[in-house]
Structure formats: C-alpha cells, structure tokens
C-alpha cells in the first residue's frame, strides 16, 4: 500500500473510533432528551382554571377566594356558550322531524367535544369519575380538544387501492343557518377567557398520590415504593456484600473452593433479571412464604440477590485499592488482623464501597423484571413502613410499563408517563452522578 492510502486509513480509523463514541453520546441524548423535555412538562405546564379547580377539590390546595373569582370570570364567558346551547335545543324542538334528526346527531358530537373541553355542561348528571368532572386541565390538550370541536375528522376513501386519508371539515359549516353557527367562532376567540391558562408549577406531581388512575394528581406512591424497594434491597445486600468482599480479599485462600465461589459470584451477576423474578416467586413467596403474596419485602429480597454481586465486586475493588502500607503499619503496631480490617482497611475503603453501593441502589431502583411477580401492583395508595411485610406497592419502574402499555387511556396520559420516566431516570442518574463525583474525589485524595 502506498503511504497516502495508509495515512487515509489511519485517519479514517481514528474517525471510526471517535464516530462511535459520538454515536453513543448521541444515543444517550436521543433517549434522554425527549424524556427530559416531555417529563418536565408534567411539572411545568400551562394549566387552566380546571386544573386549579381540581387541585382545590381533590387536594384542598390553592386560595379559595382567588379561585372563586377566577371561576366567576370564566363562568361569565361560559354562560354565553351555555345560552347558545339552550337556544339551539329550543330551536331543535321546532324543526321538522327529519331535519331535527340530522342536526341531533351532529349536535350530540358537539356536546361531547364541549364536555371534553370545558367539563360537564349544565343539565348533565354529575359524573362519577373524576376524569369527567373537569374540563381540560392542560392548555396544550385544550387546544387539541378545541380542534376536535371546530373540525370534524373525515376519511377520504376515494382511492380504493390505498388506505383512506384523514381530512377535516369545519363543524361551523354543518350548522350554517342555525343559531349554533355562532358558537364556533365565539369559543375559538374566547377559549382563553373560559379556561384562563397560566403558567403552572405543579410540584404536587412529586408529592401527591394519583387521582382516578393517574388521570390527575401525582406519583408519590410510586416514588415511595421505589425507595422502599431499593433501600430494602440495600439493607440486605450491602452488609452481606461487604462481608463477602472482606472474606474474598483478606481471608480466601486460592484453591478450588475459592474459584468456585468466584464463579458463583460472576454467574449470579449474569443471571437474566426475569429469572430473578421467577426465583423470587418460587422461593420467597411460594416456598419461604415471607409474605402471603406480593409484598415489598419479597421484592426487596429478590432485588437484593440481584445486586449482591455488584456490591461484592465494588467492595473488593475498593478494599484492594487501599495501599498496602496502611495495613502493614497497622499490623506492625501490634493490632490483630481483625482489628486492622475493622479500624483501618474498611474506613479507608468506605468511600469506594459506598460508590459501589450507590450504583447498586440505582440499579435496584430501576429494575422492573424482578418485581413483576414479587412486589408490584398497578394502583395503590402510598403504604406505611409497617405494611412492607404484607403489602405490595406501586413502583415507578413497573408503573411506567403499566401506564404505557396497559392503561385504558395510555395515549391521554402520556405526560404522566413521561413524568414518571423522568423521575426514575433522574433518581438513577443522580445516584450514578454522585457515585462518579465520589469516585473522582477519592482518586484525588489518593493522589494526595
């Protein structure tokens, strides 16, 4: 090969390497950015008066005087809409039967769209479900619903060889010549006055429990469940892991038994997470009966087994990183091996061990498969500490799955799902970040 080609090859080789790192960073961005962007929308958004009504009714939050003046001003604009509706209903009665039937069908669609936008109309029976008690609580959703009200979606299937295409027909045209025709431009112009959108910082998303299966409210029970499970897993796994690491680094003698134990450890690290779930079900619940059915404790134990090898490895590395001189100094002062480990080596290795622990905590918080059969339920209130032995809990990871693919209105509550994903990712990444910072400080300290 001539030298030019070799140089090109060399450069392009470098480019490929850098390119793949860039692709990885991009992959991280592509995944994280939509999650962060949409997830923040669960907490910061343009909320309508309906949102404030809901907060006041469900959580007793907000100033009732301000709210009632807001409601009064929004009702002034709404009253006109309701007047138009009653006026049109009166007109309907006077129409010829076939015409009446034609308009009736269209009119019921308008009513449904209005209910979705503004909440129950006067004369409607009081809805039982909270989701129907309020109009749109979020402004961007209200705009979508406004579109649904103003335009009817139709499907063009003139071409028999391809699937139909959607197109929109203005509803106002359908009501041309009736008293209702005025309704559409009125609502379009006055929607802001009716819903009073304003920037909302809904911190309750983190601290409230959900209302009406996550249509409204927050995700506190899930966050709490995640912490219970992760911390519970740590309580079991951390002491065990550190003790095992001390054995491996200080006491184990090379030999068949030791290599077998190490193989066992790495095998445990490689077991697929769903198999841990099966094992948790078969062992902790069906055989040991730690609880009658799914419970926090069964989930935490299953997760503990899963993170045990990670903790052992991290603790081993941290202990091995303690300079030999520490140990020798301590031993030469006449302290016992046991004493040396407890007072010199473990304290010196503690930051490193904690780093491993924090990372495992993140892993325990994020895993889903092991808790499907052992701990997770889709709807439940926050549980108390006393209930961890008997009660299952909602948890972020499982509820993300549940809301995204099992909920009856998965597409309507995307913001809640994104909010949950963001909460989980934030918890996990913060834990990891603190581990990275911790490690950086240790390496600085060790360098002197």
């Amino acid at each position: 090969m001539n030298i030019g080609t070799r140089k090109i090859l060399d450069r392009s080789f470098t480019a490929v390497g850098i390119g793949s790192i860039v692709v990885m960073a991009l992959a991280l961005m592509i995944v994280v950015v939509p999650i962060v962007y949409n997830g923040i929308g669960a907490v910061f958004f343009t909320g309508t008066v309906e949102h404030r009504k809901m907060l006041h009714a469900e959580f007793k939050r907000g100033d009732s005087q301000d709210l009632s003046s807001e409601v009064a001003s929004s009702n002034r604009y709404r009253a006109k809409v309701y007047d138009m509706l009653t006026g049109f209903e009166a007109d309907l009665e006077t129409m010829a039967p076939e015409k009446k039937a034609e308009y009736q069908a269209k009119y019921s669609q308008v009513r449904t769209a209005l209910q979705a936008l503004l909440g129950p109309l006067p004369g409607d029976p009081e809805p039982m479900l909270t989701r129907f008690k309020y109009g749109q609580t979020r402004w961007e959703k209200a705009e979508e619903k406004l579109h649904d009200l103003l335009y009817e979606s139709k499907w063009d299937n003139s071409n028999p060889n391809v699937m139909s295409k959607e197109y929109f027909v203005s509803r106002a045209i359908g009501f041309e010549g009736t008293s209702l025709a005025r309704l559409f431009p009125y609502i379009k112009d006055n929607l802001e006055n009716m819903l009073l959108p304003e920037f909302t910082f809904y911190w309750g998303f983190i601290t409230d429990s959900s209302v009406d299966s996550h249509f409204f409210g927050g995700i506190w029970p899930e966050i709490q469940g995640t912490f219970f499970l992760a911390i519970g897993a740590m309580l079991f796994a951390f002491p065990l892991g550190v003790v095992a690491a001390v054995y491996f680094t200080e006491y184990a003698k090379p030999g068949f038994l030791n290599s077998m134990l190490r193989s066992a450890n790495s095998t445990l690290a490689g077991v697929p997470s769903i198999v841990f779930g099966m094992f948790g079900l078969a062992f902790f619940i069906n055989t040991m009966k730690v609880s009658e059915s799914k419970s926090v404790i069964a989930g935490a134990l299953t997760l503990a087994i899963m993170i045990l090898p990670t903790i052992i490895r991290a603790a081993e590395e941290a202990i091995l990183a303690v300079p030999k001189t520490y140990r020798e100094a301590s031993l030469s002062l006449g302290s016992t091996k046991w004493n040396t480990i407890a007072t010199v080596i473990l304290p010196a290795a503690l930051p490193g061990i904690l780093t491993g622990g924090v990372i495992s905590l993140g892993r325990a918080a994020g895993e889903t498969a092991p808790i499907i059969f052992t701990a997770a339920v889709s709807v439940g209130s926050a549980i108390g500490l006393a209930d961890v032995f008997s009660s299952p809990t909602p948890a972020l990871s499982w509820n993300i799955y549940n809301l995204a693919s099992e909920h009856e209105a998965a597409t309507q509550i995307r913001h809640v799902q994104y909010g949950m994903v963001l909460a989980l990712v934030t918890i996990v990444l913060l834990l990891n970040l603190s581990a990275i910072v911790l490690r950086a400080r240790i390496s600085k300290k060790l360098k002197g």
Partner: protein
Amino acid sequence: MIKKLLLLGFFFSCAVTGTANAEGKALVLDGSTTVGPVAKSFATYFTKKYGVRVMVSESGSGNGAKSLINGSCTIAAMSRAMKDAEIAAARKKGVNPVAHVVALDGLAMVVHPGNPVRSLSKAQISSIYRGAITNWKEVGGVNSRIVVIQRESNSGTQESFKELVIGKGVQMTGNAETQSSNGSVKSRVSTTLSAIGFLGLGFVDSSVRVIAVNGVLPSVKTVKDGTYPVSRPLYFYTNGQPAGAVKQFIDLSKTVEGKGMISELGFVNR
C-alpha cells in the same frame, strides 16, 4: 462527607416514615385488564368513601384466578367465567370461588380509522384470525397485508374472543401480534393502518374505528338485548359469600354511583 450522607439518609427515612399510616386491612384485587378500569374506579371511590385501602393489579384473568386460589387476593376480577379446572383446584385448596357479575361487555372489533372496511361477518373475522385471509382486499378493503393483533394467552378477552368468534380448539395464526392489554391493542391499532384487533367496549374511543359484526354495531342497547353477537359478562370472584368490606365493595356495582361509573367507563350495566 460521610456524615453528610448519613444525615441525608436520616432525613430521608424521616420523610418516608412521616407519611406512614397503617389503617385496617387492605382489599387486594387482581385480574383482568378489561375489568381493570371498573376495579380501579371502584377502588378510588371506595377508599374515599370508607377509608379502606384497595390495591389493584391488572395481570390477566388467569392470574386473577390463580391469586384467588392462592389466597393472595381478596377479589379476582375476571373477564371470563372460571374454568372447571380452576374451580377444582380452588376446592382442593379449600377456596370456594363465588361469581358476581359486575357488568356486561361487548367485544368490539376495531380497525384503524383510515380503513374503509366498515363491517365484517363473524366467519370473515374467524378466517382472518385463523390466517386464511391475509389481505384486506379479500374482505372488500384495500390491497394491504392484515396486521392481526391478539391478546396475551392469559387474557380473558382473548379466551372469550376465541370462544365467541373462532370456536374452541381452532388454532389462531402464529403471525398474530400479541399485546398484553386492551390499552396496548388500542394504541397499536390506532397507529397501524392495516391492523385489526379486538377490545372491550369500554376501551373504544375515537382513535380507532369500531366495525359492525354481522351488520350490528356494539352499543349499550345491542349488547344488552343480545343482538350484538360478541358480548360477555365481567365478573368479580370472591372466596365464599362476601361479607363486610368485600361485600360493600362488590355491591358497589348495584348502587347508583357504581352504575354511573360503569356506564361512564363504557361498559354496560346489567
């Protein structure tokens, strides 16, 4: 720094225990995703009214039955009747399952709103799900492969569908995509032009188009009077005759409020 961490941990545990409130024994519901919305709404209402905690997990009718048999739930929500084998297993364990019909449900056949097909006969649907018909052209639609969507095998909806439309012992096509819940079937169908799927009537909204079966569209009226050919009852199963809070919970379906919730969710009151 370690102190800081410990302090943080301490605050944290305080924050967590601060919210601890144990009150009475909770009701645990397990089972069908179809009955899920009813169960969840009842649960919210019940907790609010009586202050009893209710946990709902939606893991499929089969799982609901299993949980009831194992004693791990108080009420099993099921979208099909318990099978003989399940009842026998329950008896063996000293559990006596009692059925309570909560509501009626029509199994709606749904397609993407852009699909020009408006009606299918039961036989056509059966052929589609057996794999005998694979293109929309064969049933009067456009030239496009049919994406067949079914439910997980532990789904009561799936079993009802098989029983009502295809017939027992007939195999469905292996090409059918499997979704784990009504909600995911709906979102798959609403985003896939050439898909067909089936849903509990309560899950239907404008994102999908309901097609008529044998010329009848599912609605409250047609389900109630039985003219719609694909409908079934939804059950709550309890161990023995219910008493106390369990009875209160189950009887919700007979109260005005309960009936209101059921009809608002799109199901049909008995």
